[in-house]
């Protein structure tokens, strides 16, 4: 029954987008974390999506998170001589989180999440309808 696969596919997308939202939340929360547990500034994390074949769904594919990569771009340098972590020339190394990028990421992830929930709702309606085949109007 191929409509069941719609749940698998849209469900995998919902879960992948939730992981993306997780990464965004972590990046935004740590946008000002000058020192992480290892003493170095926090590095932004990004999820990488990959299409994942679904058993029994010919041609259809779900999504999975292939990996979570740390953004390798250069950290921000902020001049703040009073900061306890400031170096000899008065600069503090801050995380390389771009707050505007993360907000865009968040909006995109939440839209995709909503769309896939809507897809599941429609599939549910169609399946319930199919159950009434031969009875009623």
């Amino acid at each position, binding site marked *: *029954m*191929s*409509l069941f*696969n*719609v749940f698998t*596919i*849209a469900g*995998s*997308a919902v879960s992948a*987008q939730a992981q*993306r939202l997780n990464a965004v939340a972590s990046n935004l929360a740590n946008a000002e974390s000058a020192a992480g547990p290892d003493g170095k500034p926090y590095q932004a994390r990004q999820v*990488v*999506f*990959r*299409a994942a*074949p*679904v058993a029994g*769904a*010919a*041609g*259809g*594919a*779900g*999504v999975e998170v292939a990996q979570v990569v740390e953004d390798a771009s250069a950290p921000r340098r902020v001049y703040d001589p009073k900061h306890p972590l400031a170096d000899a020339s008065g600069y503090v190394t801050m995380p390389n989180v771009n707050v505007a990028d993360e907000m865009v990421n968040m909006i*995109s992830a939440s839209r*995709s999440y909503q*769309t*896939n929930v809507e*897809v599941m709702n*429609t*599939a549910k309606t*169609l399946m319930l*309808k*199919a159950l*009434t*085949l*031969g009875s009623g*109007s």
Partner: protein
Amino acid sequence: MITRLDDALGRQEAALTLRAQRQQLIASNIANADTPNYKAVDLNFAEALKRAQAGQPVTGSPPLLRTVARHLPPIPVAGGPAGAVDETASALPSVDGNTVDLDAEQARFAENTVRYEAAFRVLNGKLRSLLAAMQQG
């Protein structure tokens, strides 16, 4: 009589199944709207219905004829949609190689939902007429 029942319902039943299958493909496009290098797919409905009525699989190539017993059986090729499943061309492919046009997919999803309902109503109507013919007056 059974074959007549099959004749009466066969095409509508195939149409309903194919609508569900198309729904699944569109769901997979929507799910992979953010996946790099994902290529959007769609079901060529006319071709799929023709294949379904000829008893051929909807996806994959038509079955090879083995005219001599010593012919090797066909080896199923894994991956790669074929048959009635085509890649949809995108007017504006993304830089990451993704060809999903989310708005167009949502429109197709809504359209397919309505067509599923239509196929359902026709099938339901046929079933109810058959039931009426079976009952005595």
